[in-house]
């Protein structure tokens, strides 16, 4: 007993050096809260700079961690290390990604009209906390840790969603988020317990080995798989756990919506892919029978994920068609985007343990493009919304004249989301389709193609409104800082579309 406590202490002490960025984030949360609490009349700007400082520091620590491959809080087993977190390239990428998203959201928040008269320390603290949760999601190698990361990120997100207390929609959205999130957690934890029951462990490596020799019935595995997938899907905002998405996106303050749509989704994918890799290692289980009935077709993760991909993109795109609220529309769009991304995961599930399969590059590349195009879109929506109160598509009428650069930026982001060359969205989608076609998921690729065409309807609704419809409104002053941010978000889209070789090479290094 004493020995095990001693071991645990040693593990924790050693592990601390492995989580410096996470610790910095914790510190940032504390500093922000304290500053907000103790410094009277602290300006939102000041807290924002503190947050930037903190994130940059965290980023520096993260960069220092580049190339590390280490189990954190790990202990030695006969066949290798077991830990709670695994700092590897995969985790590193998603952590950088989440951090970058948070960083971009700060200037957006600084500009956000509803935030101007408020104490913002809490908001940035929540942002940092959510980021911390997502850091853990990205690197968790233990289901419990993954669950904790999800919950931690979710908690912070619930609060941030409802941050603008005077905004009814925000509060409502927040509440729905909480309720929905609780349900999702419940579902997931039920799946976890099943897995634990079947394998006797929560660590991915153990699970994988146990499944390899397991006597568990396929029916149980299937239930567990679907339940757990439900939990992950909630984070990825994919069908069937997407329902929260429109309300929350609509209700949340736009800068945080942006954060949710990018960082939260990425973290969801990160935690899911890592889990999937373990679950399907050694060929993975296929479920050929259920409850005494024999199904002829084999059924496994690739099918579940492919189905989810197909449904997500279809439901997302169809749902978006009728939306008039821009944020709601982009919420559905992000569901559809999750569907596209899941294509890559489906292929990964099918083939990651085969010599030629398991390429995560399309996923990574698409996320990089997604980062710029989605944040760019929300940036413009936030800036324009803050100045004109625009919330519906028709509110954007004539933006091409009123704020040409903003309109141009939003237009490029829309085209990129749609997947038109020469933008990054096209190259990203091309790689997603390519990986699907390459792995005999042609039907999915074709479906994605048709979906792309459908999505043109609503992406172009915005373009049409901005350029082809006239409005009486005057010129909107966007501010040079906002334009600079816009430029930083939009210009890379062209780089990604026209000179993506380095990024494509970069994105190839993120397997397990």
């Amino acid at each position: 007993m004493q020995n095990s406590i001693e071991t645990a202490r040693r593990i924790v002490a050693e592990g601390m050096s492995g989580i410096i960025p996470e610790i910095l984030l914790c510190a940032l949360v504390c500093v922000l809260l304290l500053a907000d609490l103790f410094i009277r009349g602290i300006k939102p700007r000041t807290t924002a700079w503190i947050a930037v400082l903190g994130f940059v520091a965290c980023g520096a620590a993260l960069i220092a961690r580049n190339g590390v491959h280490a189990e954190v809080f790990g202990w030695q087993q006969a066949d290798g290390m077991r830990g709670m977190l695994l700092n590897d390239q995969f985790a590193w990428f998603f952590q950088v990604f989440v951090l970058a998203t948070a960083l971009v959201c700060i200037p957006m928040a600084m500009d956000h009209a509803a935030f101007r008269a408020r104490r913002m320390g809490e908001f940035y603290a929540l942002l940092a906390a959510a980021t911390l949760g997502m850091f853990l999601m990205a690197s968790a190698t233990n289901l419990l840790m993954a669950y904790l990361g999800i919950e931690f990120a979710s908690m912070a997100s619930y609060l941030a969603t409802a941050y603008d207390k005077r905004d009814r929609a925000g509060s409502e959205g927040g509440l729905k988020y909480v309720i929905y999130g609780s349900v999702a957690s419940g579902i997931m934890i039920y799946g976890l317990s099943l897995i634990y029951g079947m394998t006797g462990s929560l660590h991915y490596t153990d699970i994988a080995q146990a499944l390899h020799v397991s006597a568990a019935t396929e029916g149980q595995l299937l239930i567990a798989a679907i339940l757990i997938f439900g939990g992950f899907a909630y984070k990825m905002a994919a069908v069937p756990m997407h329902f929260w998405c429109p309300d929350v996106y609509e209700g949340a303050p736009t800068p945080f919506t942006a954060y949710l749509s990018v960082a939260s989704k990425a973290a969801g994918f990160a935690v899911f892919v890592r889990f999937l890799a373990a679950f399907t290692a050694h060929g993975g289980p296929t479920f050929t029978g259920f409850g005494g009935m024999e199904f002829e077709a084999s059924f496994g993760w690739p099918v579940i994920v492919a189905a989810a991909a197909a449904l997500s993109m279809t439901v997302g795109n169809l749902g978006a068609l009728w939306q008039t609220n821009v944020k709601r529309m982009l919420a559905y769009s992000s569901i559809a985007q999750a569907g596209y991304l899941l294509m890559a995961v489906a292929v990964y599930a099918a083939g990651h343990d085969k010599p030629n399969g398991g390429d995560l590059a399309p996923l990574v590349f698409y996320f990089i493009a997604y980062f710029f195009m989605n944040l760019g879109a929300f940036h413009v929506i936030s800036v324009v919304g803050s100045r004109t109160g625009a919330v519906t598509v028709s509110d954007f009428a004539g933006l091409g004249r009123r704020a040409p650069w903003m309109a141009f930026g939003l237009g490029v982001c829309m085209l990129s989301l749609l997947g038109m060359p020469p933008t990054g969205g096209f190259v990203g989608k091309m790689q997603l389709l390519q990986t699907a076609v390459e792995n005999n998921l042609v039907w999915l690729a074709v479906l994605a193609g048709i979906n792309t065409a459908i999505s043109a309807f609503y992406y172009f609704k915005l373009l049409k409104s901005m350029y082809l419809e006239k409005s009486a409104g005057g010129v909107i002053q966007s501010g040079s800082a906002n334009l600079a941010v816009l430029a930083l978000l939009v210009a890379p889209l062209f780089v990604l579309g026209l000179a993506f070789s380095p990024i494509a090479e970069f994105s190839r290094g993120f397997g397990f």
Partner: protein
Amino acid sequence: MLLTLATFLPLLGMVVVLLLPTANKNLIRWTATGFAVAAFVPIIVLTQGYGAGGDRPAVDTLRAEAAAVVAGAPAPMRAQITELLADAKSNTPAFRTFVAADAAHPTDAEKKSLAVRAKLEALEQGGAYKAWHEAWELTLAAASPIAADMRYVEYGQWIPSFNIHYMMGVDGLSMPLIFLTGLLWVLCFVYSFSIEDGVKGYFALFLLLQTGLIGVFCALDFFLFYVFWEIVLLPMYFLIGYWGGTNRLYAAIKFFIYTLVGSVLLLVAMLALYWKDGYDSFNLLTLTSLSGGFDLSFQMWIFMALFMGFAIKVPVFPFHTWLPDAHVQAPTAVSVVLAGVLLKMGGYGFYRFSYTLAPDAGISQTMVLFIGGLGVINIVYGALCAMAQKDFKSLVAYSSVSHMGFVLLGLAAMTTEGIQGSVLQMFNHGVSSAMMFLLVGVLYERAHHRDLDRFGGIGLQMPYYTGFAIIGFFASLGLPGLNGFISEVLVFMGSFNSETFFAGNSAVYGLPRWMVYLALPGVVLTAGYILWTVQRVYMGTAKKEEYKTFRDLNWREVFSLAPLAAMCIIFGVAPQLILGYMNNTLDHLRTFIVTGGGN
């Protein structure tokens, strides 16, 4: 360099135009026109050069590039690369994947394959795999049958990680279309001086469109092609959507979505080809070198996916309904380029991609009947629809549907006359339909309506204009002495002569003759609607007092119409001027297709 210049000068023009002050409309107009003219200069040089057999053949360029790539590889690996390249074509099967060989008793082919694979792995160890792959691509490209007539090839690295190259070139298939593009832009810009609203955006988008189109016709890398292909969509959407008629938004989005569906399927086909057998190549010439070896079922679905992409553009029945809407709503100059060049992207695609990448599918009985049948439907159905139109512009639009049917018919026939007639028809239709849309536009600018039943007596009022109209309409009708006749006759001749025969191992299916008989009434119907139109619009007495105040053509309109009218006559009398450009290319192309890609 010339191709790059021709392609990207308009893009530069767009940037310059965007930088000009919005208020100075004339400056914008002249600058844009200047860039269109500037882009036309290299095109003329190209045309001249190509006609004179100028520039070195693609084969030489590609071989030189391959040699350079090998020379750039790590020194110890060069010999091995060269050794592998010597037998480039036989190295093709599945070189990146393991052959599913029975390890104990591999077949000879498998042994060979494994040996190749071992060599390739050695190259990979030595860090020369990339170089080998590129050299291999280039070697095969040089061996491609369509490289034989390719000229002015430009080759450069673009996105190495996906083996995407900046590769451009022209042959007899693309040359006439590029020329037409260059010319039509100049004419359209001059014609568009009357645009007063949103001048800057209009010309900027128009210039962007030109870059896309010339790029489409020049690109020899599938990815590059696709990028240009998609670039075309966007300016078109805005040009229709902003400067169009009352129902412009509907027409614009319909155009966009419809063509987008097509291009996405095109994309899927492109990716399937890239993936095919681990070739990892977007190089069109390389792929054509390999296409003969693709199995038929793969070819079939590649063909269908490509077909969908191109058919929508052509447009082929039943995917044509976007066209009348787009035409009716679009401003005149946009209609002109839409009918003149944009539709040709589809036909060009059939030749450049569908039939070269899936040659066996193209000559299979199913596809011959399918394509030929659709061609016949296009011809007759388009003519019937045209006859029933009340709107001048939609009449001309449906006549385009009808005329593009000839392109399909000639293509399906796979005879020398059929193919050359079909490509010639693309060019000729580009000239005559552009002219017809200009003619409609001229009238619309004066009358502010296009209702055929409300015109009359224009011939008396605007005799000079009517002279042009007669040339344009009769060229479209297929009157001998004007350009449309030659292509129609060649297509018909080709389809009559089409017959099933055996070339190499593959049966080349001919077009059944009853199909051609079904298409023939289209000729009568065409005469019917054209003459009926001429009568309703130009003959008789003026139905309204205001028609008597119409002024005849002004200098801008003459400038736009005269070159087209001249081309109608010149190419009608001397078709060899165009046929001479296309002959070798299309002859080789045909041989390539009917021999099943040479395998």
